[in-house]
Structures are given as structure tokens and as C-alpha cells.
């Protein structure tokens, strides 16, 4: 799969969400795609994401939310990252992020406004997502240096 340095990423399903199937697939997929995946599994709190990112010096946090409470659970994650000194970490979100069937553009706008760098629907092509992730990380790395 995509070649390149094994950037570390933190993966998990936020809130009280128990949907574990997609999480297991994402873990296997991003590992295969050459990332070092710190997978927190399901039911991960905001602070657990941040703790893990700090601890592993991760470049990106990949938040999944399937069960509909994403809107509540993800609010404030970016602020909390900054508060805790994680100011350049990439935030990605994906899944069935809100309750109900709403136009994806609307959902994307909402989550971008919350501070997420990229937002994905459930039908996302994972290869495309991995390529974006690598590019975004590399851009961030260059920006820093």
C-alpha cells in the first residue's frame, strides 16, 4: 500500500458508541497502509483521545462516530486539544456523524466548524482517505519545519 514513514495515528469511536466493526476494519486498514495505529477501540472519551495522542506523539486523531451522538460528543474536542497543548494535531471524523439522514455537505460544514480538518461519510473510499491523511500529515510536518 501507500509507502512512506509510519506516522502514528490515534483511532477510536467516541462517546458511548459501541459500534466496533468499522473500528476493527479501520485498524487493520491503516496498519496495512503503513501507519502506526494506536487503537482505543469503542467508547472513547475526548480526554482519552488526547492522552493517547500526547503519549504516542501522534500526528492525527481519527474519530469515528456511528451511533448519532457525534454532534454532542465531538463538540469541544478541538478546544480541549489546544487547552492541553496539542495545537497542531490533525482531527478527522467519519461515520454516521449525526442523528438521521442529513445532507453530507451540512454535516461536513458543521464538523469543520467544530475544528475538524476532514470529515467523511460512511461510504468513504478508505484508500482515498489514507492518501489524504498522509498528504495532510506531510504538509503539517513541512509547515512545522
Amino acid at each position, binding site marked *: 500500500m501507500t509507502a512512506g514513514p509510519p506516522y502514528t495515528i490515534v483511532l477510536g469511536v467516541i462517546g458511548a458508541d459501541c459500534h466496533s466493526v468499522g473500528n*476493527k476494519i479501520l485498524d487493520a486498514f491503516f496498519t496495512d497502509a503503513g501507519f502506526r495505529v494506536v487503537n482505543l477501540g469503542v467508547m472513547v472519551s475526548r480526554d482519552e483521545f488526547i492522552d493517547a495522542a500526547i503519549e504516542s506523539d501522534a500526528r492525527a486523531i481519527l474519530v469515528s462516530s456511528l451511533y448519532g*451522538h457525534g454532534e454532542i460528543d465531538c463538540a469541544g474536542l478541538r478546544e480541549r486539544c489546544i487547552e492541553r497543548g496539542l495545537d497542531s494535531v490533525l482531527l478527522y471524523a467519519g461515520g454516521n456523524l449525526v*442523528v438521521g439522514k442529513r445532507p453530507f455537505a451540512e454535516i461536513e460544514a458543521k464538523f469543520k466548524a467544530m475544528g475538524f480538518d476532514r470529515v467523511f461519510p460512511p461510504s468513504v473510499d478508505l484508500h482515498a482517505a489514507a492518501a489524504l491523511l498522509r498528504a495532510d500529515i506531510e504538509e503539517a510536518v513541512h509547515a512545522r519545519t
Partner: protein
Amino acid sequence: MSSTPLDWKEMQAEREKVLQEWPTGKDVHLEEAIAYHRGLPAEKSFPLAMRKAQAGKLLLLQPRAGVPLIDEHIKLLKYLETEGGADVLPTTIDAYTRQNRYAEAARGIELSLAERHALLNGFPAVNHGVEGCRKVVESVGRPLQVRHGTPDARLLAEITLAAGFTSFEGGGISYNIPYAKDVPLEKSIRNWQYVDRLVGFYEEQGVAINREPFGPLTGTLVPPCIGNAIGIIEGLLALEQGVKSLTLGYGQGGNLVQDLAAMHALRAQAAEYFHEAGFADFHLTLVFHQWMGGFPEDEAKAFSVIALGAAVAALAKAEKIIVKTPYEAMGIPTKEANAQGLRATRQIVTMLQDQAITTDHEAMRRESGLIRSEVKCLLDAVYRAGEGDWARGVVRAFADGLLDVPFAPSIYNRGKVLPMRDNEGFIRVFRKGALPFSAEIQEYHRARLEERARAERRPVSFQMVTDDIYAISKGRLIGRPR
């Protein structure tokens, strides 16, 4: 914790504590609740509906549905009753309540009010309390069931049963392993013994309450034997606490023969185990779940997944079917989409209701015999692990991987089992972990998977499992390479 009937008197101290977990608990008064139930019309009794379904060979249609605000929830259920033609109604509980996070549920109610759209994925029954729940019970004309996914559902049960709900879904395994991350099985089983005992108390007072273990588990390629074995154990644990009206569940796997065989095996084998354990006074029915895994996004395709499930349920002569909607892959459905799922299901069910397809043939006998042998392997091992105590046996069996649910989030689940479809789409076991299958059974699964590997000219591999997980949402049953 062990597999013994809880003493009702001893349970009272615990009940008091439970009722204090959230302010609404104080409104639960059992005597008043019993009287309230006695005053409910017969058409609101779930156990009665299940009896009538069995006697009349009817397949009852039930949607999933729950929104945060009471009035909206009532509107939704009424719509599903009139426009959807639902036979029995649900109240699906939101995910904070399921985790006993009532403060967050309260915030969800507030935000939903403020933003004028639902921000919770279900009805927070504990927050709404007995009074709020009774508004729902009194507004609809059908029996109501609580559907959720709560490892500790003691308070939820206290409140909703007191409010007049007459069926309660879940179980100590099926509402823990697929729904929680780090709740020990000892705790969830014990908490569900409480729920079952509470139901048993209602039954003692002459108020019938239906109980329904959650058959589909993670809903994703679960081999029939695993669901059936867990369903039978949860049935035994429930009967022990005095449950009388029991509905065991099965989630559509996708292969017609396997689905029919599994339903057939479940009905017969559950009754055998219950009788063998000395229970006689129970009423057993089956519920079939339309495909519980990932759905196609396209609504036309989703309709077909719904229709195929409906057809199998009708042919399997289930008593109840849980209906999906054309929005399944996208999000919680609108009431219109939910009613569409019901009407699509009704059309199939009614077209098939007078039809029978014979299950008395070689392929069916083979598959149903296989499932029964597998279930026996699993249950024998659990029984041995518990030294005759099912509850203790379950805890040890999960610890040792003798029971193991594919793709489950719980850390108390080994997670070593990988299922995979064979060349005809039967769900088989690719990596069995520590499942105590006989050599013969293992060999059968292996041979079936090899057959597929040959057909696809690729080795049996993890990629096939991933492909199978996506298959139905991509419009296929078996995840073959293109």
C-alpha cells in the same frame, strides 16, 4: 453471582439503591404499578400478542423507533401504528441511557429542544420517568416493548415496567458483549437476573411481561450456533428468575437454507433445554431480525434486503419480525422511511403467509443438524465450565474463549473467532479461536471454506472476512473479488 433464583425480599435493599440512581426512580411504586397494569386493556399486552401470533400463525411486525422528546415520540409511534401498520411497538432507548449516563441524556433532551431536531438516538426513558413513559403507553393502541442495549438495565426496567411497558428486550450476555467495552459479565448477568426477577415478580402478581434476549449480537456474520447458544442460556437464566413469556431472537444471515435451518434448530433445541432444566410453564416464541449488518446506502437496494429478510421470516414461521428501513445505512430513519420499511415487509409477509416451503429435505436437515451439534458443543462446554451453573459457566466460558462473539467491543470477549461465508453464502467459522467444536465440525467448516477458496482462486484469508463484512452493503452476499 450464580445461577439461582434471587430472593425477592433480599432484593429490596438493592432495589432501593437502584431507584435512587436518578431522581425519577422515586416514582416507582410496585403495588401501584401492578394495579396500573391490571387496568390496561388486553390489546396492550405483549405476552398476549405473542400468544395470539403463535396460535393464529401470524407474523407480528415491529419497527425500531425512539426520539428524545415525549410528544415527538408519541407522534412517531402513532404514525408507525397507522401509516406503517406496526403490530407491536417499540421504544428504542438512546445510547447515553444505555450506559446509565443520565446527565448526558438530560443534556441531549435540552439540546434537542433548543435545536429543534433530535440529538439523541433514542428515547431517554429514565429521564422521562414513570409519568412520561405512561403518556406514551396511554397514547398508543399496541403493546409496547423497551428496546435498548443496556448492560445495567435495572433502573430502566423498574421505570418502564412500572409505566406499563409489557416487554423488555435484552440479557446479561447479549446486552453486554456487543454493547459495552468493559462491563464484567458477572456484573451484567447479575444485573439482568435482577431484571428477570423483577419480571418474575410481576408474573407472580398475575401481570404478564414478555422478555426477549437480543439474538443478533453484533449483527455481523455471527455464526448461527453462537447466537442460538447464547439465546438458550439467556432463556434459561430468565426462566430461572420467573420469566414466563420468552421470545428468542435470530438475525438474518443471508443464506436461505441456513436461516431457515437455524430458526428451526433454535425453536426445537431451546424447548428441549428448557424442558430438560425442569421448566414447563413458559411460552416460547421466535423473533427474526432483518439483516443486522451494514446495509446498502441505495434505498432501492435496501428495500430488497428488507424484503428478503421478510420472506425468510415468513417462511420460517417466526412469530415476530424486527423491521429495518430504507435509511438504515444513513441514519435514524424519519417516520416516513420507518413506515416504508414496515409496509414493504407487510407486503412480503402477507403474500407469503399462506405459503409453505418444505424444510424436509437433505440440505435443510444437514444444516439444522449441524447447527444443533455445534450448539451442543458450546453448551456442553459452558455447563462444564460452570460445573452445572449456567451463570458461572458463561463467565468462565467467555474468559476461556469457549464462547466468543465475532467483532464484539467488550474486553471480556476474546475476539478470536473470525467468521466467513462459504461458497454458497452459509456463514462458517474461519478462525475458531477456542470454540469447543468437535473435530468433525471443524473439518466440515474448513472443507466448505476451502471450496470457496478454490472457486475464487485465492487462499482463505482475512481479506475474505473484510470482503464479506462489506458484501451486502455493496449489493452482494459473498465478498468475492471482482
